[in-house]
């Protein structure tokens, strides 16, 4: 069934179709509609789930951890400050190997107070052991929530579905809501082998000396490596059932492109639009949309970027005192595999819009240079 809905509601429908069993969430702009719709759905008993209206995001994640440990499919959604407040428990959920799924609406970090989009909030969780999937459309949001549980429950690692504030969360567009029956077939019920079980009592997460700690952390990393395999495997399976294909990266006109824009989120969507315009002008430009940040798709990124003559990474984020985070991720992955000049542009922080013109300007600037002459370039700044 097709329905015009905002990105936030696409999350709620995704979670409902995935038959989540415990929801624990706390309001924050721009996430509130996710929670509001879910509380209605649960109140109307259209979804058999417990909704815990916790007193903070920290407790939201704690409740998800408790619920998931007890064998329930757990869900939450948040944004920026809320995500940051969960930080300790993000490490926790991953270390405990719990297949929790969370939606995060990208919003810039305070101070100053802001409610507008950029990716610093989720990207600065890149070392917590969560998978991260960046979406560019409401359809992808809904689909990704469902797929996320599939992968998470296979490898026992949590997943964050990430989308831009307003330009996705509050944007209405048509979304195909798949049949519940199809989803049920695709995503079996959660059957957790390691649940808290009075019939088979175990203690989880206890003190672990240097004798064994490291091996458990290796297992976490191996689970991430396995997750990459699973994501690649799920792509055609999902397509077969639902007709839509999602890979780790989303290349557009990359094969013969001399210059490749590496982008993510809604900025990637706009970049695709810009590529069409630039191609029309005869410019050999392509766009590589980064969809999965963790597990990092090394092979795909290296493969897709191997023909480029110039690579431009546009970050809607920055690691202060370094470069843009996507730039760091991609450059490090390319080290030893590529010699192509990589240009890093920082754009659109705190909700500053990224227009097609933004890309035209970037391309124009890069055309004039053989290789980067600055560590990074700020875009459309009031200098």
């Amino acid at each position, binding site marked *: 069934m097709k329905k015009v809905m905002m990105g936030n509601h696409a999350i709620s429908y995704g979670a409902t179709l995935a038959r989540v069993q415990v929801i624990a969430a706390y309001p924050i702009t721009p996430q509130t509609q996710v929670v509001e719709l879910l509380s209605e759905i649960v109140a109307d008993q259209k979804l058999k789930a417990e909704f815990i209206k916790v007193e903070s995001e920290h407790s939201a994640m704690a409740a998800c951890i408790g619920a998931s440990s007890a064998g329930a499919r757990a869900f939450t959604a948040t944004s920026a400050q809320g995500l940051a407040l969960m930080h300790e428990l993000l490490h926790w959920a991953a270390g405990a*190997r719990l297949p929790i799924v969370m939606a995060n609406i990208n919003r810039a970090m305070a101070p100053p107070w802001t409610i507008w989009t950029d990716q610093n909030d989720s990207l600065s969780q890149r070392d917590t052991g969560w998978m991260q999937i960046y979406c560019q459309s409401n359809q992808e949001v809904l689909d990704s929530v469902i797929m996320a549980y599939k992968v998470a429950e296979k490898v*026992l690692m949590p997943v964050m579905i990430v989308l831009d504030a307003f330009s996705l969360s509050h944007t209405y567009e048509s979304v195909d809501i798949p049949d519940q029956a199809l989803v049920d077939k695709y995503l079996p019920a959660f059957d957790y082998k*390691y649940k808290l079980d009075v019939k088979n009592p175990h203690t989880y*997460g206890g003190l672990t000396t240097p004798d064994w700690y490291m091996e*458990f952390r290796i297992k976490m990393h191996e689970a991430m490596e396995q997750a990459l395999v699973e994501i690649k495997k799920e792509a055609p399976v999902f397509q077969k059932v639902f007709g839509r294909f999602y890979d780790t990266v989303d290349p557009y006109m990359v094969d013969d492109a001399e210059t490749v824009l590496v982008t993510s989120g809604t900025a990637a969507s706009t970049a695709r639009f810009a590529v069409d315009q630039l191609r029309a002008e005869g410019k050999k430009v392509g766009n590589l949309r980064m969809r999965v940040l963790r597990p990092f798709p090394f092979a795909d990124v290296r493969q897709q970027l191997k023909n480029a003559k110039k690579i431009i990474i546009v970050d809607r984020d920055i690691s202060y005192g370094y470069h843009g985070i996507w730039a760091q991720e991609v450059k490090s992955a390319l080290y030893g595999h590529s010699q192509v000049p990589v240009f890093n542009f920082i754009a659109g922080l705190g909700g500053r819009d990224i227009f097609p013109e933004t890309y035209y300007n970037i391309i124009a600037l890069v055309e004039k240079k053989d290789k980067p002459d600055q560590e990074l370039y700020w875009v459309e700044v009031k200098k």
Partner: protein
Amino acid sequence: MAKDRKKIDFKKMEELPPMVMSLRSMAANPTGSWRNLKPVIDLSQCIQCTICWKFCPDAAIDWIDGNPVINMDFCKGCGICAEECPKKCIEMIKEGK
């Protein structure tokens, strides 16, 4: 969970579960070696009141056939049993060193 007293000795990473979980009881850890004073019950004085048993923080007193029996594998020698015994029939003696 296995009440086995043997220590678990993993050889390889593959033997480990994906996350840290207990696989055996702490009875595998004989804390008797911590003891510097050792409780000795004079059963002839004992009135089987169960007070020593119920207060032992280490569950190191078993109640066997109506009598308290201290499990020296685990007793840490805190002396609570001796202190609380209404008949004062538990003595704390220095571990033979």
